[in-house]
């Protein structure tokens, strides 16, 4: 594959959050000595992947698996503890605020809750013109107005409502407005963090169609984060499945859903309730998701996995590419202990 096909690549990114608190909280008595100890949430651990131009990379996983953290690290909202992020071949995770500005224009984010992500004291016009005035000080008032109308039209909100406040709109319309804010700078890359999770099913379909349409018309690249597996199956080109801060499987959407390889992916997919299918047998997992504060040794999934053996509890499995192009991080798959 030509490297110039790759828009974004994430290399060995680690993000831990310190939750120890103040100095006194750090003091611990251990082995007869007093020492300082930090407690951290290991949200993202050594995650690497790339996003190709024009594709939709879906990231799925259950709550707490680190999918939103990785999105925020990519956008520069959180600095990573280690690892590198490249956008269009240029490293962006160590840039200063000024150096980052041109990238912010190209990378935009859409958030989950349109009730929280729009400023309630700003009209639609103010919300949409702020990024334009900031990034394009050379634009005239007329140009700004035209641009706002064009984008509002595109997302299906009547430009006549430009003077209204967010509370005057329904949830679906608010999400359209936050998509408009994401599109107004003509970005190349959009990180959508659960953009339809707060919406009703019939509205969800409208917004997904809108995102797909905008993607086609503007040749956008998406990083699409969601916990909803049917949404991700529908819209993604490739899908990364995350568990406890690591990617356990990354494959083409159709391959992943037709033939999941990792034991966690299998269990996750079997739990999706399908309309019109009665009591599909789902794979039961042992126990619960461990906390990201004390990560299990070896494979993070081993305590819940029926295929786990000695090696799984000591050695961390790496993402390995299989014959069909899927990547799986599982010793059992590598050793052919899991058939099909």
């Amino acid at each position, binding site marked *: 594959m030509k490297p110039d096909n790759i828009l974004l690549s994430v290399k060995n990114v680690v993000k831990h959050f310190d939750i120890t608190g103040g100095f006194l909280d750090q003091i611990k008595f251990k082995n007869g000595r007093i020492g300082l100890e930090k407690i951290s949430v290991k949200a993202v651990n050594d995650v690497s992947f790339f996003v190709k131009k024009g594709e939709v990379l879906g990231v799925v996983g*259950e*709550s707490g698996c680190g999918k939103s953290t990785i999105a925020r690290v990519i956008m520069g909202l959180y600095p990573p503890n280690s690892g590198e992020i490249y956008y269009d071949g240029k490293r962006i995770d160590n840039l200063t605020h000024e150096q980052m500005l041109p990238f912010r224009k190209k990378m935009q984010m859409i958030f989950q809750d349109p009730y929280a992500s729009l400023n309630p004291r700003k009209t639609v016009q103010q919300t949409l013109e702020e990024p334009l005035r900031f990034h394009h000080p050379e634009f005239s008032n007329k140009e700004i107005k035209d641009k706002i109308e064009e984008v509002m039209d595109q997302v299906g909100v009547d430009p006549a409502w430009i003077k209204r406040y967010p509370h005057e709109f*329904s949830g*679906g319309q608010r999400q359209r407005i936050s998509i408009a804010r994401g599109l107004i700078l003509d970005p190349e890359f959009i990180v959508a963090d659960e953009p339809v999770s707060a919406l*009703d*099913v*019939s*509205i*969800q*379909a*409208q917004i*997904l*169609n809108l995102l*797909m*349409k905008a993607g086609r018309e503007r040749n956008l690249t998406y990083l699409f984060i969601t*916990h909803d*597996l*049917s*949404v991700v*199956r*529908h*819209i993604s080109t490739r899908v990364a499945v995350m568990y406890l801060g690591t990617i356990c499987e990354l494959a083409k*959407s*159709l391959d992943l859903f037709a033939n999941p390889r990792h034991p966690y992916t299998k*269990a*996750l997919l*079997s*739990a*999706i*309730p*399908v*309309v*019109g*299918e*009665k*009591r*599909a047998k*789902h794979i*039961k*997992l042992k126990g*619960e*998701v461990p906390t990201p504060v004390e990560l299990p040794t070896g494979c993070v999934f081993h305590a819940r996995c029926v295929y786990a053996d000695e090696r799984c509890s000591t050695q961390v499995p790496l993402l390995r590419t299989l014959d069909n192009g899927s990547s799986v991080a599982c010793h059992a798959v590598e050793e052919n202990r899991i058939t099909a």
Partner: protein
Amino acid sequence: MSHLLQINDLEVKFALRTGDITAIDGIRFTLDRGEKLGLVGESGAGKSVTGFSIINLLSKPGYISKGKIFFQGNEISSYPNEKMRKIRGNAISMIFQDPMMTLNPVFTVGFQMIETIQAHREISKANARKIALEKLKKVHIPSPEKRLEQYPHELSGGMRQRIIIAISLLTDPAIIIADEPTTALDVTIQAEIMDLLQELCASDNMALILITHDLGVVSQVTEKIAVMYAGKIIEYGSTDQVVKHPVHPYTEGLIKSIPGTLIKHGEDLVQIPGMMPTLTNIPPGCAFNPRCYLKESICTQKTPELRDMGQGVQAACHVKQRGNRQNNNEAG
């Protein structure tokens, strides 16, 4: 024989300063022992209000303006609060969406469970504790003795929801009303909770009203389904039939708008244009008519009634009902 639960033309209004608005507009359904009914619809359709009105938990401006609710042959909708308290949480239990909000954070699980039993029965603390333990085992909670001493924040979301279910089982209810019981939970935990509810209904011959927006969940768990739109039931019948061959255009749209059901990967989803009207602003005639692809002039003039459409399904749609009549005439 009378039904376990029977709801006749229930109408619920909310008294606002600007006048009354109708949240539930003449709904009717029945529930028998061991039966599982799914109440589906989008936010604001009146699903939760229906659940609340069954156990008379409507909060202040809301009141039952018409219709009756019968439980085991008794008209419970006219019971005073004192009398209703003997049924609520006892013979009819309710499970709510957010397991963190339902449990009291300052009391242990054991305290809350024993309190519930003692509120409904003359029983010693030691015996109540035994029942609590037995129910915790029933919902497959590991090391139940330990859980009784724990506080809600020490437990995971899935565990909390299991405890809530255990609490609702303490008094051996005949009906459990579950209002979006898995919406706040992850999909693998959702599957486990749904398995558990099904298992309990089967083993105790309990009836379940499952209120949810998720058609996938409903079609896996329930035998009967009622689809609600703007305060009305617009389609009612066997879940299998409704989900596979929806009659009402709204049900049809709802099913087709779910990714991965009928539409191929990456293609546009079928979308229902517009959104559900607010209760203050329900259009005349069929409430769905501004969004409907089958709309005719009669739809804006006359409100359709739920009518039998064959295959054990009832639907409220003028156009489909006429088609059905014509088919029957040709057949007859």
